[in-house]
């Protein structure tokens, strides 16, 4: 079993794919991120090569389809266990059978890859609604904690919507942040820019919205089960309407405690 270790980036992953095809080892190979595994088996370190990445990308887009490349990227963002191997098999199958492979949901590899891509897309769509900003001087700051790495997918939406307004979205799970200054954007890891994570601003609109949220429900129609399915608890941390106390109330409580401790 040959093992290819890449650096964790999508460009690195496609470089590993290139290597697998080049060395004709597309069967029985395991592709994994260097960050996770230290292997006892024979492993090859893949150094990310932009040219190889471009060749694979263009190869897929021209010989298969743009949609298939998008499925591949989106499914990769799920970082589900062994997704890299599934995606390699998916590509092998694709080059054999053509771009309509996307519809062959009877095939278990296709099914797993398409389902992974759909999971990521669904979460990205939900977060377009669940991202909440707080004003900090002239910057709008948001904290999120999604299951999958969705920042690259939601970035275009918020940049288009907020146009000249600078904003920052911090993903606590992948420890990356999307920064937009009104003109360009970057996605930076915590290590690259820890200063972005220092502020924890509060905003009076959190309580305004929370009060509005509380009056909106129609008592006679309440259904905890349905509400939970649509807005799972895992997302509640960053939704002011679901918190017991708003950010401002928490800060007030903390300063009271500090005052009394002294």
């Amino acid at each position, binding site marked *: 079993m040959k093992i290819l270790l890449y650096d964790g980036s999508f460009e690195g992953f496609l470089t590993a794919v290139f290597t697998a095809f080049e060395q004709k080892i597309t069967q029985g190979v395991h592709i994994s991120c260097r960050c996770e595994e230290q292997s006892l088996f024979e492993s090859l370190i893949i150094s990310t090569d932009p040219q190889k990445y471009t060749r694979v990308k263009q190869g897929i887009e021209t010989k298969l389809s743009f949609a298939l490349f998008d499925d591949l990227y989106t499914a990769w963002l799920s970082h589900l266990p062994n997704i890299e191997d599934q995606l390699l098999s998916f590509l092998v199958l694709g080059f054999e059978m053509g771009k*309509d492979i996307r*519809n*062959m*949901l*009877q095939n278990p590899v296709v*099914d797993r890859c398409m389902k992974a891509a759909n999971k990521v897309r669904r979460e990205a*769509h*939900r977060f*377009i*609604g*669940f*991202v*909440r*900003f*707080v*004003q900090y001087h002239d910057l*709008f700051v*948001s904290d999120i904690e999604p299951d999958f790495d969705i920042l690259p997918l939601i970035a275009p*939406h*918020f940049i*288009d*919507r*907020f*146009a*000249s*307004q600078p904003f920052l979205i911090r993903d606590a799970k992948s420890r990356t942040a999307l920064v937009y200054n009104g003109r360009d954007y970057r996605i930076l890891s915590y290590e690259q820019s820890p200063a972005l994570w220092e502020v924890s601003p509060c*905003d*009076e*609109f959190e*309580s*305004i*919205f929370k*009060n*509005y*949220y509380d*009056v*909106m*429900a*129609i*008592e*006679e*129609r*309440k*259904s*905890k*089960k*349905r*509400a939970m399915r*649509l*807005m799972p608890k895992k997302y509640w941390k960053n*939704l002011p*309407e679901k918190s017991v106390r708003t950010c401002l109330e928490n800060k007030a409580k903390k300063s009271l405690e500090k005052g009394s401790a002294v």
Partner: protein
Amino acid sequence: MDSISRKLEILGAAAKYDVSCSSSGTSRSGAMGHIGSAVKSGVCHSFTEDGRCISLLKVLLSNACCYDCSYCINRKSNDIPRASFSPEELANLTIELYKRNYIEGLFVSSAVLKNPDYTMELLFQTLLIVRRRYRFLGYIHVKAIPGCDPALLEKLGPLADRVSVNMEFASSKALSVFAGQKTHQNILTPMSYIKNRKEQAQSEALAFPSAPSFFPAGQTTQLMIGAYTEKDLSVLRLTDALYRRMSLKRVYYSAYVPVVQNNLLPAVSSPPPLLREHRLYQADWLLRFYDFSVEEIVNDTFPNLDTEVDPKISYALRNPSLFPVEINRADYKLLLRVPGIGVTSARRIIAARRFGSLNEFSLKQMGIVMKRAKYFITVSGKFLGSVHPDNPHLKGILRDSLPCDQMTLSGVFGADSLPPLSEETLDRLIPTSSKAVLP
């Protein structure tokens, strides 16, 4: 900010019975120097504890109504706190919430202040500030007040995405009993004006691409369900007529929630007919996406939707000769008739069939609900159900297990509440009106 928050609590609570809250239908990119965009599919920013999507800031501009409709919490004779936003206050609140991504836009309705035209003018002022001063490109849904002058609709058309005016009841008689100041005439007139004006705007846009839009996301309406014992047949026939003749985007159903005590209406303690509302939405889906005609869902011999099974199963059980269908050969239209096969599953079947025959396992993977579908299909000739489609026991097998919070007694309301008005009683109350709502 405290007074704004207080006003928002009153005016948000007052607007919650208008169930429409979609932000879908328009697609609009953002632009430098502006704020906002519109997403074609709409976005849910939150979900209430009764499971409804919160997409727009849904408020009344004011709840100080001069009408006295018997079912309405904001009616003039009801003793509740009254509040009003000024157009500036509401516009500012909308933008601040939008910038923080709490909402996709604004849904603004209002109680009738002085008269319909005066109210519409205030709504117009609000929209003008949001669009022009704040350069807002997000979604706006505005209500049209029944009886307003078309000139005001003309002013609002380029500023809002969607407009709605509520039909309230399927029967004109019911409307005159419960809301004497509204008539179907002054509801249908603006609706028809908007429909015609939109068609004009669409053909203008073809010739002149930069022509101003006119309610680009179309119009919708709402019907209350269960304030009196209307037949589902009346509701669905009206729905179908509105879709076809008024080009409505959606008809919403709102289970009547008794909020005021009145001799003619169900008592305040009685539960809203949620199950019936659910069945009507299922029927509405069949009309819009599954190519059913109204008469196939309900008709003179079968005027009310089955409470025990959904309308699609009900149709299949009443038309057993159409089934079972062969999954590897049936066309799209026929696949849509099978209980357990939805629009997405039917599309997937058609797409996957090109690569080979489908078997039971692949059907499950594609999202077909085999628990229901197996009684109505064959897979390469093999029938997998335990009984055939014409078996009288099949309904019992397929019957929904109704969750407790949706259960309503067969008489629709609780035993100790006043019985709601029947269509016959309405006939007696107003003997001279014509029967049909739309000709």
